[in-house]
């Protein structure tokens, strides 16, 4: 585990440098966001690979090169995501829940009133409840199961011989989504295979998959929660199909964050710029 950078007494973190970097070491991708004056100036993503720490070093170097700054211009590096404790380049780390809740302060589109944040990641999905001042009130996460996560989408995309970026647009063309009842990835996989065998259109299968995922995540959400809007973050929010499925199932508008995939990294950078460690 890396050492927490000790702040000198009375010295604001802001004095150390102008840039703040957030690293989000997810199960599938490592995301980085560079912040200056509370605004995102650059983002970068690399596949996590097996050497988390090495990938993190690479991404910091690449980002510095891309934005033409020195490593010393970065005041503080905050890590989040499941590999956050093993990224040597980081000064400190913070849980993904806090990071996502913070990220929304920067990534929420205009007109969004803080309420629920739905994050769809590679291996988990979570719902965070915010009060009017963007403070975390509560949160729920999916249990030890990949249903309702990016991994689920990836598995189905593979069977349907398409790629993850095409899954959304294809499903939007569907007029009659299939019913997919299994919530378990492995069972859903065999269900999809049988739908393929029965010559269902893959666009309908994909639309059905999105609805099934949305239903699964909505089960975690509190129906009684009033006030505020719903915002989608995480790599999953890049998928237009899942966004539409959410609106259909929730029967209300669902916002999508700016740089959804980088929301955690942005939050980590923001918290670093505000106060260093937690």
């Amino acid at each position, binding site marked *: 585990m890396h050492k927490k950078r000790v702040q000198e007494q009375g010295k604001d973190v802001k004095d150390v440098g102008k840039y703040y970097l957030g690293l989000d070491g997810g199960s599938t991708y490592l995301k980085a966001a560079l912040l200056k004056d509370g605004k995102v100036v650059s983002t970068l993503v690399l596949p996590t690979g097996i050497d988390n720490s090495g990938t993190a070093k690479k991404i910091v170097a690449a980002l510095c090169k891309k934005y033409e700054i020195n490593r010393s211009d970065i005041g503080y590096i905050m890590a989040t995501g499941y590999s956050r404790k093993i990224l040597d380049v980081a000064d400190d780390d*913070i*849980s*993904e*829940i*806090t990071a996502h809740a913070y990220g929304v302060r920067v990534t929420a589109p205009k007109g969004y009133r803080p309420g629920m944040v739905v994050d769809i990641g590679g291996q988990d999905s979570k719902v965070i409840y915010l009060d009017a*001042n963007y*403070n*975390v*009130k*509560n*949160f729920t*996460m999916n*249990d*030890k199961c990949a249903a309702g996560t990016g991994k689920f989408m990836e598995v189905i995309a593979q069977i349907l011989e398409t790629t993850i970026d095409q899954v959304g647009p294809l499903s939007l063309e569907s007029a009659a989504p299939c019913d997919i009842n299994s919530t378990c990835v492995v069972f859903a996989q065999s269900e999809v295979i049988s739908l393929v065998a029965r010559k269902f259109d893959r666009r309908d299968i994909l639309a059905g998959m999105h609805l099934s995922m949305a239903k699964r995540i909505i089960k975690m959400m509190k129906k009684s929660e009033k006030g505020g809007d719903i915002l989608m973050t995480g790599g999953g929010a890049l998928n237009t199909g899942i966004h539409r499925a959410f609106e259909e199932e929730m029967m209300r508008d669902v916002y999508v964050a700016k740089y959804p995939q980088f929301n955690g990294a942005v939050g980590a950078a923001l918290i670093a710029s505000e*106060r260093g460690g*937690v």
Partner: protein
Amino acid sequence: MAEQVRSNRQRELFIKKSTRVAASYLNRAMALSEMPDAAKPFFGTLENTFVNLRGIPLCAENSAEKRKTIGTLCVMVPAELVYAAGALPVRLCSGSYTAYAIGDDYIPRDACPLVKAVMGFGKIKALPVFDQCSLLVAPVTCDCKKKLSGVIGSVKNTVPLHIPPLKKEDADTEVFLRELYRLIPILEKETGRQITPQSLAEGIRTVGEAQYEMSEFLKYRKHAPALLHGTQVMAIMNAYAYMPADVWAGQMHKLNLEMKARLSQEHFISRPNQPRILVTGSPISFPNIKIPLLIEEMGGILAADETCMGERGLYDPVSVIDTSFDGMMRALASRYTKPCTCPVFVDNSQRVYRIKQMIKEHRIQGVVYHVLRGCLVYDYEYQIMEDELGKLDIPIIRVESDYNEEDVEQLRIRIEAFIELIKLKEYAKQKEAISEHTSMHKENVQE
């Protein structure tokens, strides 16, 4: 013959695994910084019980007479009655992951892990404190315990004890009083000793001493910054289940002296900004102390617990007003139902009241609500707790868990984020206070 060999082998492997798990949790709890020296005997008891697999010493100090031990479950079996019959009560509610795996074969899948672990020990016969008990008094509380009290009769001599589902009216206490009178001849037959007014008064005094030391201890536990880790307190409370009350009280007295010394030397184990957390919900029995451990390993302070293997069993003494035998029996019946905050009772507003009281007294900043899978009664009460604590602006998080270690990482992230949430909440409050202060200051300057 082959069957016998196989079951011996299973027992051998069971012992290897269960002692290893118990030892590792003991070590983790003891590794939390600055454990008081006086806490060691309690850990010693847990080690003897679960690692060295020794039974409870049956003879009291300076006595050759061997006492019997009576197994109990839940918090409704009056220990006073068992002592009055000349026996030792032992709480058999178990947190063993290994016994849970054995019990899984005999108890339906959706039942809670605690009853599975109890059944597991009943079947495997590898825990001396369990096997020592000649009788098990099993209160009919939640659905899982109700059915357990039926099926465990196949492996252990068991008496089910009826618990009224209501506790508000005097008539409800009367029902329980009749049950306690019914229990008397059963205990007497088991031990061969009569329960007399004198022995009952002595029993009440024995348990009362432990309760007195507990009430003293709570004064120290309330202190902020903390004087010791709450996970260690959970272990100390768990040890009460396997120690004679007078022995426990004696050790507790020493612990209280050490706490007093720590307080006067301002020897604290927490920093001022460590969030003070209360844990409540389903039972936390050794070695299943993963939730308290996670809270404190992730930087929180477990400042209080409202659980049945923790404070609930001891914070409230029996108050005898009428010293006749019947008067004492009525005091017992009343003590073990009316103030009991177990959610098996239909109306349980006491629990909300008690938790609010603890939040105030222990200066709690957040509540971790523990739900064992299949534990419906506690899950039922989560909603009301969330509503009530929402009014007090105290964050609460529900964590569901089971008797295995597969979910530790998922629990860790939830608990870590919860601790961050409390810290950031405090930070926002401070910032607000500072900005209010500066704006006031500016106004003053302008004036």
